[in-house]
């Protein structure tokens, strides 16, 4: 069963792309519950996950029925970035994934909030949340990068491993009227500055990975994603038509 968005507006594609990013990353962060290294991080990671889930619900509702879109689409119909579907790995991996994504989301929502497009109301609220997420990720990047030898090594490994997924954030998305090149420049500046302060090296490798950049937006995902969806959708799909 493949559900397609009910409302076909010019902004549906963009709402789905941004909504799927938030939905998928929220799910990954939800997997940390009960596993965090300190209690304060149980609270913080769940908090970020909840903010993202709230954003996802608003965005998916702009494109159709939030539950149908979340639970009844198959992997090839999801439009999220490959970055956000990456498994949690260790804490450094989760933090660097958050740093890359939150820096992008913060800059994007700041720009959207200042305009008068259909995403301005959501962006106005989300920019406050994402500035907190970015601060949290930056603080931890500093602690891990400039902490112990082990934490530095793990943080650098995460920085390198996830770098290839960052180019995709700056591919054009239909219905999202923003200056991609300016966004990319600002993102690189912010992330480079943070990594530098954290005594981490900015990778010089490609930022597009094995798939062409923009693959996630076309529904081309990495292998762990299908498994994530199987878990997320199983119960809902087992009871067609039920309400919860």
């Amino acid at each position: 069963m493949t559900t397609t968005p009910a409302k076909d507006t010019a902004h549906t594609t963009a709402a789905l792309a941004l909504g799927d990013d938030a939905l998928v990353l929220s799910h990954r962060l939800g997997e940390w519950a009960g596993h965090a290294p300190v209690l304060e991080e149980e609270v913080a990671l769940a908090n970020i996950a909840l903010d993202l889930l709230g954003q996802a619900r608003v965005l998916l509702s702009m494109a159709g029925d939030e539950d149908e879109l979340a639970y009844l689409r198959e992997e090839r119909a999801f439009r999220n970035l490959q970055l956000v579907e990456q498994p949690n790995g260790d804490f450094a991996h989760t933090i660097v994934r958050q740093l890359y994504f939150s820096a992008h989301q913060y800059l994007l929502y700041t720009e959207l909030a200042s305009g008068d497009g259909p995403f301005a109301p959501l962006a106005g609220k989300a920019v406050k949340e994402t500035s907190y997420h970015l601060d949290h990720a930056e603080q931890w990047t500093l602690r891990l990068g400039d902490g112990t030898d082990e934490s530095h090594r793990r943080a650098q490994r995460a920085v390198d491993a996830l770098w290839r997924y960052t180019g995709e954030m700056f591919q054009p998305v239909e219905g999202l009227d923003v200056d991609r090149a300016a966004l990319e420049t600002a993102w690189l500046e912010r992330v480079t500055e943070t990594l530098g302060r954290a005594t981490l090296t900015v990778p010089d490798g490609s930022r597009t990975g094995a798939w062409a950049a923009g693959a996630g937006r076309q529904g081309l995902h990495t292998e762990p994603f299908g498994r994530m969806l199987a878990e997320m959708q199983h119960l809902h799909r087992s009871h067609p038509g039920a309400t919860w």
Partner: protein
Amino acid sequence: MATAAARDTAGSQTYDVRHGAGDTAGHERAFDAAVAADERIEPRDWMPDAYRATLVRQIAQHAHSEIIGMQPEANWITRAPSLRRKAILMAKVQDEAGHGLYLYSAAETLGVGRDELLDKLHSGRQKYSSIFNYPTLTWADVGAIGWLVDGAAITNQVPLCRCSYGPYARAMVRICKEESFHQRQGYELLLALSRGTPEQHAMAQDAVDRWWWPSLMMFGPPDDESQHSAQSMAWKIKRHSNDELRQRFVDICVPQAASLGLTLPDPDLRWNEERGHHDFGAIDWTEFWDVLKGNGPCNEQRLTRRRQAHEEGAWVREAAAAHAAKHTNGETGATRA
């Protein structure tokens, strides 16, 4: 316990809190008078060593229960069947971590550290509520935990808002507000299932059947077998006996089950006009003691997972400490080393 009596007897407010230097009998009289007058004992007040030890044990085990209690529910976060339910569940598990934090802070006012208490949890020297050693097998279990387990917890904890130890009582005021919210959400989840498809209704009934008796066990052993009860009641840490609270809970649940359209799995459950309470069947205390001793369905799994999260997080905590040591002024720009 900022009373005139306490100050007079102690002579000074800065006396040694652990060993009432000199006039122990005077301290004891002042402490007993404060408890009798329903005044709050505060961290810097003199208190009997046994009172302190009892509170450390009880508050720590309460904190541990919040932390271990995240696991059975977190088990369903990634499978929650709607985005609304997923958000509610995530918020609830987050609240539980927050409750753990309040409670460890309350315990720390008694002179123990959070690390020391976590170590006791991980090594099995301190316990957590036996209820969390039962598995969450279906989505309806999330609702049953909210309705029954949180309901039992609230029945237990509301009187603790008047507990004689100030920091614990104040933590409980905050916690009880959030717990009542969770309890209503659990009830509402079960109601949606009960009124849903036949499969959903059956799922709800099955969950209530499995969680009912363990929930009744949350009030602890019967009054005649409860080793700490009498002293805790004399100190006004506890306000009601285990059996009293259990009866109160049963009386609350019976009409709620009826309005949910679900039955409680007890053939002996019936209204007793004479007592003005519901009579109910015998609890399987063998199972209770067995679970408490570590032989419940999930004891091993819960503790292993908690230890694992702690051990796997060690390098993160070490990194934070090393970073803080390098940047003592809180600025994170330049390394001083």
